[in-house]
């Protein structure tokens, strides 16, 4: 239980016991509560007063399955709000095994100075000059770092996009195979890392000084029971290992909620060509891997390795949100092009969602035609070359809308929506509008409620409550290190009980089921408080005008949640 405080201004590293106010916190809970307490809310997100925090989840580094999420937090240059963006891979488990609760990066290196933060297997940290890595893309950089520090190393890094402080810059992290293809994509936190002068974290995976487990026997038993619940759940045990998140392409199109051609239609023409079913078939034919283990401790294997037609590696892992942003929104119905764009984003260090939507806005504004594959690749090249238009695209959809004087820009608080149109899924309209993160696909996605027929996606009734409950649940899950995709096992009696038992056995607590939503509410309150101090009010919890006025085919509906209802979301 220690904080590693890294001051980039004077290049010092301090180690301290976790202070009392932060005890019992991990992941998003820790990043958000700490940022709210210590970062001046009106500071420049790319200035020295902002803090960039890396926090593994509460259970990361233990033997509990699927607990390898790391939360990255800061004030976002994209949204101006508090931000938590989380990623899988191996680094959360590596930090957990070293008993590191958080790395807090403060201050700012001088312009043009670059560093790597290395943490060895004993947990000793050092800041090393990294001028030689300047300008490197993430695949080449990660390969070089693994050569230098050994295969048993986790890397978390930025590419040129982060160095250039683009607002859609991601932070990439290495998967089980040492590829930098897992991303803390949202919110432009790669730009914050770039502003600090930090090119990469490298963490030895062989640490053996984790925080103690209070009751190892009970922990072991409950971990076993939880693993069974994850395997038994039809979503994490069957669908995800076969199709990955891309399995969502078909049902969301069938429901008329797949925002296509910059959110002008709810069904994409030819969506079958980019569906999860088609993708799995292609991957098998090309000897890729449709059921790849991407993250430490993972038993779901939702990741994939996508090869080109000659059987050569093209990308990993092709996900639903990327297929939507690079395919549905741009009208590109070709998985190979989408996979190439995905790889280029990972390599350059860009959020695939913000980048795809930025291209779609440019197309909608008339710069290029929807469906033009070479235009999309050319726009990526513009970003890579750092041309004026490339910088605008790399700053996300809102910047593109301003440039072209185009108002159909599907963002909330500057961040693009995800692959569910709010006009055809009214609960996700509530989440996009009210989440402290800006529009976000993992802050409170209600699609499961619709597919289980608990709620009608087109009616206003019940949507605010569904969004509220899901936002609370997600805020809590994001504290634990548990992967969202395994977390639906918590909704079964066996899975929920096993997980709670594991938490209590780890920390020697006697928490009841009510502790989970209480934690989520605490986190959301801190995030809302920060945003309020930063100048945000309820009036910012609104969708762009076109979602209220332009009916979305095929249902021809608009967002019907009133402002008053939106404002009741956080009545807790």
């Amino acid at each position, binding site marked *: 239980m220690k904080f590693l405080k890294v001051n980039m201004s004077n290049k010092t590293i301090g180690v301290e016991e976790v202070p009392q106010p932060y005890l019992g916190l991990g992941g998003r809970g820790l990043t958000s509560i700490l940022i709210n307490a210590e970062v001046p809310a009106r500071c420049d997100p790319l200035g020295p007063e902002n803090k960039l925090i890396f926090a593994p989840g509460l259970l990361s580094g233990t033997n509990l399955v699927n607990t390898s999420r790391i939360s990255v937090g800061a004030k976002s240059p994209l949204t101006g709000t508090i931000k938590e963006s989380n990623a899988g891979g191996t680094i959360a488990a590596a930090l957990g095994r070293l008993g590191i609760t958080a790395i807090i990066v403060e201050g700012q290196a001088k312009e043009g100075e670059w560093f790597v933060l290395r943490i060895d297997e004993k947990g000793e940290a050092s800041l090393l000059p990294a001028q030689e890595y300047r300008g490197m893309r993430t695949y080449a950089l990660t390969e070089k770092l693994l050569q230098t520090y050994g295969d048993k190393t986790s890397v978390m890094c930025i590419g040129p996009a982060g160095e250039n402080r683009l607002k859609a810059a991601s932070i990439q992290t290495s998967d089980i195979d040492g590829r930098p293809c897992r991303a803390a994509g949202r919110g432009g936190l790669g730009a914050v890392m770039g502003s600090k002068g930090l090119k990469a974290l490298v963490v030895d995976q062989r640490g053996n000084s984790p925080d103690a487990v209070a009751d190892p026997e009970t922990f072991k038993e409950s971990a076993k029971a939880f693993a069974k619940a994850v395997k038994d759940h*039809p*979503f994490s045990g*069957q*669908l*995800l290992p*076969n*199709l*990955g*998140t891309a*399995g*969502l392409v*078909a*049902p969301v199109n*069938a*429901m*008329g909620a797949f925002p296509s051609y910059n959110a002008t239609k709810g*069904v994409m023409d030819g969506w079958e060509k980019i*569906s*999860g*079913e088609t993708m799995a078939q292609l991957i098998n034919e090309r000897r890729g891997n449709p059921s790849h283990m991407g993250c430490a401790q993972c038993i779901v294997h*939702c990741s994939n390795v996508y090869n080109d037609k000659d059987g050569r590696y093209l990308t990993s892992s092709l*996900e*639903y*949100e990327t297929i939507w942003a690079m395919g549905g929104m741009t009208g590109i119905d070709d998985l190979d092009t989408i996979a190439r764009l995905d790889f280029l984003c990972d390599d350059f260090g860009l959020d695939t969602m913000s980048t795809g939507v930025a291209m779609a806005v440019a197309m909608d504004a008339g710069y290029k035609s929807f469906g033009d594959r070479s235009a999309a690749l050319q726009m990526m090249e513009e970003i890579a070359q750092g041309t004026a238009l490339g910088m605008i695209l790399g700053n996300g959809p809102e910047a593109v809308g301003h440039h072209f004087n185009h108002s159909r820009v599907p963002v909330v608080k500057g961040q693009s929506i*995800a692959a*569910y149109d709010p006009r055809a899924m009214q609960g996700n309209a509530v989440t996009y509008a009210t989440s402290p993160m800006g529009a976000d*696909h*993992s802050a409170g*996605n*209600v*699609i*499961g409620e*619709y*597919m*289980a*027929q608990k709620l009608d*996606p087109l009616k206003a009734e019940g949507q605010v409550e569904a969004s509220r409950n899901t936002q609370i649940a997600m805020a809590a899950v994001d504290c634990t290190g548990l992967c*969202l*995709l395994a977390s*639906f096992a918590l909704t079964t009696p066996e899975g929920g009980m096993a997980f709670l038992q594991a938490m209590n056995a780890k920390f020697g607590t006697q928490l009841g089921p009510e502790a989970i939503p209480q934690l989520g509410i605490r986190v959301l309150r801190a995030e809302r408080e920060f945003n309020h101090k930063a100048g945000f009010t309820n009036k910012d919890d609104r969708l762009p005008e076109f979602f209220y006025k332009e009916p979305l085919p*095929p*249902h021809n509906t608009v967002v019907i949640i009133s402002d008053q209802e939106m404002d009741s979301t956080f009545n807790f």
Partner: protein
Amino acid sequence: MKVRVKTYGTVTPGPAAARAGQEIEMEIPEGANVGDLLAHLGISPSQGGTVVMNGRILSKEGDLVDGALVQIFQVMHGG
């Protein structure tokens, strides 16, 4: 009446139908509802609980329309 049926993901129809992912045309009794169709296909609710016709999710009691495409999914969550 006749309906066209297509299953997705890991929903696997029983021997009465073709393999998953293939669209099939089926003759069903007049007035048959969603629950009847799922039973006929041998698809349990936990396996394929979401039935979509004309862009809307139907309950088990939902009526089917002659000639319509019926899409069957398992319940999924956001990713």
